[in-house]
Structure formats: structure tokens, C-alpha cells
């Protein structure tokens, strides 16, 4: 779903890191390879920037040569996993349940992963990778879908998502029509549902990813109305950065990644200063999980990587490179690349306000029967066509 979160994060590398402090990991060393499907920037071997390397040390330690296939969207990841030939995938919540339901990934034995104990307790049993108490992967990184806004237009941070959902005059006196954006993926219907959870409590929405027919109809109607306000839906992070700079977009759902990128540019901050907030309704967010293919050819190397990926140093480095929040709390302190304020900058404190992306399915806890994602996808295409 994330379109091109590519590895352009311009944090400077201060120290070089190499394999020190890796947990020794005992396994049958008859495997020499490991194939990973990952978001761009998720598995770095120092080729983009020497300071960001969490592969070379792993390869030396375990003898598993890491091959990375980057995928730009969740769709692409699901397609690649369906084709097979890969051991691991860093799946977002809108793909993970699909992979589990499609039996493309296998259950993980967490007792084989010493670093599992380090994982943020709130993520250990998260419903986007744990089904009926069985874990289908290990948390990797997460981040919120923040409300990014132009501070010249909004002197104070907008308190509600209504600025992107309902036609209104913004604090600068002009209408929001054509000046706001929404995410292009159907998962954005959950943003509408989240807003309705507070705006219309009588609908009884308990979870924005579990909607019965009536709740879904209300969310879809809100999203349909939003079409008139949105000039273009954003899918590509780099394109959205440009939209904020040159298209007069003043408010939109966004990722800390884009906000960091905009704020790092002084010229941009003078002309179109951007800040981000999490409004009173809360926000949706993404949380990525490293999952193992059901027919992984190199399970031992895969387990070694799962353990390695939860190492505090690795977690901190990934978060610094990617603009995300680590799944291991210990990573937030003492990481030279991330710095001690990095976790807060990327949204750590907002965990409790976030509804993480997950694939809406027909069967659901909150309502019994819900509208499934294939329907969301078809309807959201129709909304964008209006």
C-alpha cells in the first residue's frame, strides 16, 4: 500500500555500524541463502549509505546470503508471495491477514526467537499477525497516518479530521475544496469510519475495519462526498511531497516520512510550512510484520533473520532510515542514527490513539458479518471515478 517509501531519508550517518552485539544464534548451518520481499529501505546493506547496514553483519554471523526483492505496494507483495520462491516478507496490515487466510505464510514458533521478549508488549499479540493465538510473524516497524497541514493556513493544529471530510471554510477564509487530499487505497475508507465513530456515535462503529452494511454505507457516503473536495488522491509518498510544495494542498492524511522530508527542507518551510497532528478522533496507522512463506526453502536462515530483525540496534537503525517507530522499545535509547528523540518525532507517543491497518474480512468480531475488502476496493474505485 505504501507506494514508494524509498530510501531517501536524509538523516546523516554519524557512526559506522557493523556486526557487534548480535545474539549468537544456533542453527543447522546447511542453508546459505535467504530471500526477502521488503519495502524499499527496509533491508539495507550499506549500499545507499554506508552508515545504514544491518545485513552485512548478519551474513557474516550466519552464513545466510540475503537477497532482497523490493516491492512498492502491498498489492505487489501479495502477488510476489503468491508466486513463491521467497522466505520472508515485510507485510503491512492490509496484506498480512490476506496472506494468512490464503495460507501463504506459516505459523512462527516464538520460542525459537530469543529477541521476541524485547518486542513491545502491545504489539506481541496484535490481531494483524496473530490469529486464534497463533503468531504468523514478528512485528518490524510501525507508524501513524497523521494529519499533515500547512501552518500558514492553520495557525493552530486542526482538532478534527473534518477539515478533509466536510466542505468548510478553513481558517484563512477560503474553502477547502481542491486543497485537501486522501489516500488512494481503499483502506482509506477506514479513515472515514474512524471519523464517523466520533461524529455519529449512533452508528455504533466499534472498529473502523469491522463495519456492518449500514456502518459501511455511511462511511462510503462520507468518502463519496469527500471526492468533491479532493483534487487528486495520493498514493506515492514522493508525489505527495510535491503536492504540498507546488499544488496548494494544505491538509491531508500523510505519513511522518513525508512530514520529515518537508520539514528537513528550509526553503519549503518558509514558503509552505508543514506540520502534523493526530486529531481528537485518533488516527489510522500501519504496522508491518515480517512473515515467513508457507513453503520457505530456508527456514533456519529465516528464523535467524527474524531474531536479528528484532535486535535493538537493527530496529533503531531501520526506524532512523525509514522514519518509522521501532517494534522494540529498547531501540529508542542510545541509537546514534535515530537519536533519543527519534521515536517521539516519528510518532511513538501516539500508540494508543491509533487503529492499525488490517484487512477487512467478511467474518468479524464486532458485528458478526462485515463488508469485506474486495467490496471496499471496488467501491473506492467507483468513488474516485465520480
Amino acid at each position, binding site marked *: 500500500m505504501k507506494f514508494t517509501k524509498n530510501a531517501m531519508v536524509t538523516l546523516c550517518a554519524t557512526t559506522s555500524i557493523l556486526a557487534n552485539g548480535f545474539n549468537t544464534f544456533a542453527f543447522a548451518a546447511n542453508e546459505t541463502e535467504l530471500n526477502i520481499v521488503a519495502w524499499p529501505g527496509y533491508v539495507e546493506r550499506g549500499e545507499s549509505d554506508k552508515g545504514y547496514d544491518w545485513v552485512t553483519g548478519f551474513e557474516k554471523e550466519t552464513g545466510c546470503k540475503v537477497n532482497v526483492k523490493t516491492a512498492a505496494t502491498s*498489492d*505487489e507483495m501479495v502477488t510476489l508471495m503468491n508466486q513463491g520462491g521467497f522466505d520472508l516478507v515485510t507485510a503491512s496490515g492490509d496484506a498480512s491477514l490476506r496472506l494468512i487466510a490464503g495460507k501463504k505464510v506459516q505459523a512462527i514458533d516464538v520460542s525459537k526467537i530469543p529477541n521476541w521478549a524485547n518486542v513491545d508488549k502491545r504489539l506481541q499479540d496484535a490481531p494483524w499477525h496473530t490469529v486464534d493465538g497463533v503468531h504468523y510473524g514478528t512485528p518490524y516497524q510501525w507508524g501513524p497516518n497523521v494529519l499533515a497541514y500547512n501552518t500558514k493556513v492553520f495557525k493552530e493544529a486542526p482538532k478534527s479530521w473534518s477539515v478533509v471530510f466536510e466542505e468548510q471554510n478553513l481558517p484563512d477564509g477560503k474553502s477547502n475544496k481542491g486543497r485537501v487530499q486522501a489516500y488512494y487505497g481503499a483502506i482509506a475508507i477506514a479513515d472515514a469510519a474512524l471519523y464517523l465513530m466520533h461524529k455519529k456515535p449512533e452508528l455504533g462503529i466499534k472498529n473502523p475495519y469491522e463495519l456492518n452494511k449500514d456502518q459501511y454505507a455511511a462511511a462510503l457516503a462520507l468518502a463519496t462526498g469527500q471526492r468533491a473536495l479532493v483534487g*487528486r*488522491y495520493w498514493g506515492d509518498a514522493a508525489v505527495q511531497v510535491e503536492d504540498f510544495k507546488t*499544488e496548494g494542498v494544505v491538509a491531508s492524511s500523510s505519513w511522518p516520512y513525508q512530514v520529515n522530508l518537508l520539514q528537513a527542507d528550509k526553503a519549503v518551510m518558509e514558503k509552505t510550512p508543514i506540520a502534523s497532528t493526530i486529531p481528537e478522533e485518533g488516527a489510522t496507522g500501519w504496522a508491518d510484520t515480517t512473515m515467513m512463506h508457507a513453503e520457505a526453502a530456508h527456514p533456519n536462515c529465516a528464523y535467524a533473520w527474524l531474531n536479528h530483525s528484532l535486535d535493538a540496534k537493527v530496529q533503531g537503525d531501520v526506524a532512523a532510515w525509514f522514519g518509522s517507530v521501532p517494534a522494540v522499545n529498547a531501540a529508542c535509547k542510545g541509537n546514534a542514527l535515530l537519536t533519543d528523540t527519534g521515536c517521539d518525532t516519528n510518532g511513538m507517543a501516539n500508540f494508543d490513539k491509533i487503529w492499525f491497518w488490517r484487512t477487512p474480512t*467478511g467474518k468479524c468480531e464486532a458485528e458478526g458479518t462485515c463488508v469485506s*475488502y474486495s467490496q471496499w476496493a471496488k467501491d473506492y474505485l467507483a468513488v*474516485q*471515478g465520480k
Partner: protein
Amino acid sequence: MRGLSDLFYKRPGALTAMLLGPPLAWIGIVYIGSLLALLLQSFYHLDDFSGIIIHEFTLSTYGQLFESSNLQTIGRTVAMAAIVTITSAIIAFPIAYYAARFARGKTKALFYLAVMMPLWSSYLVKVYAWKLILAKEGIITWAAGGLGLGGVLDALLTLPVIGGSSLSFSYIGTFLVFLYIWLPYMILPLQAALERVPKNYIEASADLGATPRQTFRTVILPLALPGVIAGSIFTFSLTLGDYIIPQIVGNSRPFIGQAVYTLQGTAGDIPLAAAFTVVPMLIMGVYLALAKRAGAFDAL
């Protein structure tokens, strides 16, 4: 070795079979095979509740194509492809005509370079560059403002349907980028066709008293038509299938390619994606049949 050459001498068919076998197998299995698999998928349907594909023959997936939003997607894509094709033919003709009839030596080399050069750089880089050019605060808006034409641009953007909040957020922008990206595919076949128009026909036409306009209409255009059609096959089918340009430049109203891309991924609706894919194939089939009747392939 000896035995082998004897075999080829006695049975010439064996050599032919050996040479043609691998490519035919490739076309048969990989190409036709995957197309058939695609067709087969489109006759299944997705159970909306469980999100599982039901492997039973049904036409209901094709039925979904006739829902109004899907029909609009198809109509929008075909209309864009048609307009892009017609406009690129109009723009390409004078360029190709000059190159075929007047350019010689270095000028001709320069022409080839100019037409081909955009094809050497990355497609994505070009599209992103166009996004910046067309942006609300991009060079076009800036130049229009400087020339006192800002009002004209604004008027253009307030037009219903094709307008938008800026050029890069409107159909006009999508159209301009499509036109730029696919234009070389129209110029090159057109130029090849124009070069084959015998010069003495044109002279004869003039000798017999035809005005330049008549010569163009009754001699040059009919003879160059196969080139126009060959070029239009490229521009039309490429526009029909593209899903990246409308994603980056435009107003987010989906084209067929984007619908296919969305439906086959996390949505997992492969049957409907397959049915959508069959649409451009049908359109191109009809188009090629018409082109054949017009003689576009006679020169092959």
C-alpha cells in the same frame, strides 16, 4: 554430425521443426497459455463475503463490467486513448513529412536523434518531470502569468470535466503527458510510410493540375494512411493499458489499468481484474480488424 546433416538433407522438415520449435513452444505455452489462463479466470467469480475465488463457470463477473462505475472507467479510458491517438497523428504528420521529404544528411540524423532521445530516458523520470512542469506553481502557470495569460489558463481549468484545480490535477494534464510519452511511436511509422510515397506521383499530380491541397488529400494521405494506422495501433493500445501516468498526473479518476492493478492485489479480485483485461484485448481486436481492412498491413 554426419548423421545429423544427412537427416537434415533427407528431411528438410526436421531442420525447420528444430529451428522453429523452441520459439513456437514459447509463444504457445508462455504467451497463448497465459492469455488462456487469464480468460479462464474471468469466468470465475469472487465470493464477496469470504473473499475467496469460486472456481465455477459464471458470466456474473462480466456482468459486473456493466455496472455504471465500471462502464465509466472503460469509457474514460477509450475516450482518452482515442483523443491521444488523433492528436498525436495530427502533430506527428508535419514532423514526419518534413523528415521524410526535406531533411537530408545531418538534419535527418538530428531528426532521428530528437525523436528517439525521449525514448532513452526512463519513463518514470519523464512522468515525474511533467508533474512538476504542470504543477500549480510550475513553469506553465508561471509563464502564463508572466505573459498575462493567467486568466486564460484559469478559464481552461474551470471547464467542466476536463478542468481541475491545476493542470497536473486535471484530464488536460493526463492528456498532455500521454501525448508526449507516446508521440514518437506515431512519428516513426508515419515517417516510414511517407518515405515510401513515390515522388513522381506527387509531381504527376501537380502536372495534371491538382492544387497542393488536392494532392495531399487524394495522393499523399491515402498512401500514408497505413503508417497512420500502424502508429495509431501503438498510441491507442499503449494509452489503453497504461496505469502509471493517470496515477501521477490527473484527477484520480481510474483508468482500466489502474482498476486491474487495484483489483488483482490486496483486493484479490482476480476474476474481475481478468475481465477488465479482456476489454482492451477486445477493443484492440476490433481495431486491428478494421485496420486490416484499411490496408495497414499490406506493406508488411
